């Protein structure tokens, strides 16, 4: 069975500081991996995805993530956080042969201090 762990429930960073959100996954083969962002009262929006190839993937809003197979991790990073990045972030793992069914982590809430 596939699963995702986001160890940090809540993270607070100062505006302009760097950010790393952790994600560990469990999957029997090479997974599809995703990061989504959810602003208050809204649905989720895809930030970036890993399907194959280069293990460092770039996304929207200046985010990037690195797939590390040996560590079963897909951590999300941003070099300089903006106040508008305050939101909830979800990591998800999906299979290649299951109609695109994804399993989500419990989410990490990001607070940005001025």
């Amino acid at each position, binding site marked *: 069975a596939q699963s995702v762990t986001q160890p940090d*429930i809540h993270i607070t960073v100062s505006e302009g500081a760097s950010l790393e959100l952790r994600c560990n996954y469990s999957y029997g083969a090479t997974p*599809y991996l*995703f990061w*989504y962002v959810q602003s208050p*009262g*809204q*649905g*989720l*929006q*895809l930030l970036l*995805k890993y*399907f194959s190839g280069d293990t460092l993937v770039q996304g929207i809003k200046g985010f990037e993530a690195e797939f590390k197979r040996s560590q079963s991790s897909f951590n999300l990073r941003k070099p300089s956080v903006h106040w508008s990045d305050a939101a909830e972030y*979800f990591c*998800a793992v*999906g*299979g*290649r042969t299951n*109609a*695109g*069914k*994804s*399993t*989500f*982590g*419990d*989410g990490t809430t990001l607070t940005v201090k001025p």
Partner: protein
Amino acid sequence: DVKVTQSSRYLVKRTGEKVFLECVQDMDHENMFWYRQDPGLGLRLIYFSYDVKMKEKGDIPEGYSVSREKKERFSLILESASTNQTSMYLCASSLRTSGRIGELFFGEGSRLTVL
């Protein structure tokens, strides 16, 4: 842009009522999903559909049913609402194309309160 529209943003229902949550997508996606979101529990899959009239149970299907009569529309039905079904419900859709599979497009959510 892909648009996934959930017909009701906020609903208040009474215990035992039948509840319909409607979802429509406008990009000809094959796959559609219903998730439930609760604080601290992330998103949990209720049902999904990979084609018209096809449906499969997700992780928490008990107390729910679904209908997909047209490709663009996927309905979630609570036959007899209970207070433990108070939650945020999120509809999503995706292509089945290799390289795009699993890339979900979400609606804004329907917040259901059952009294």
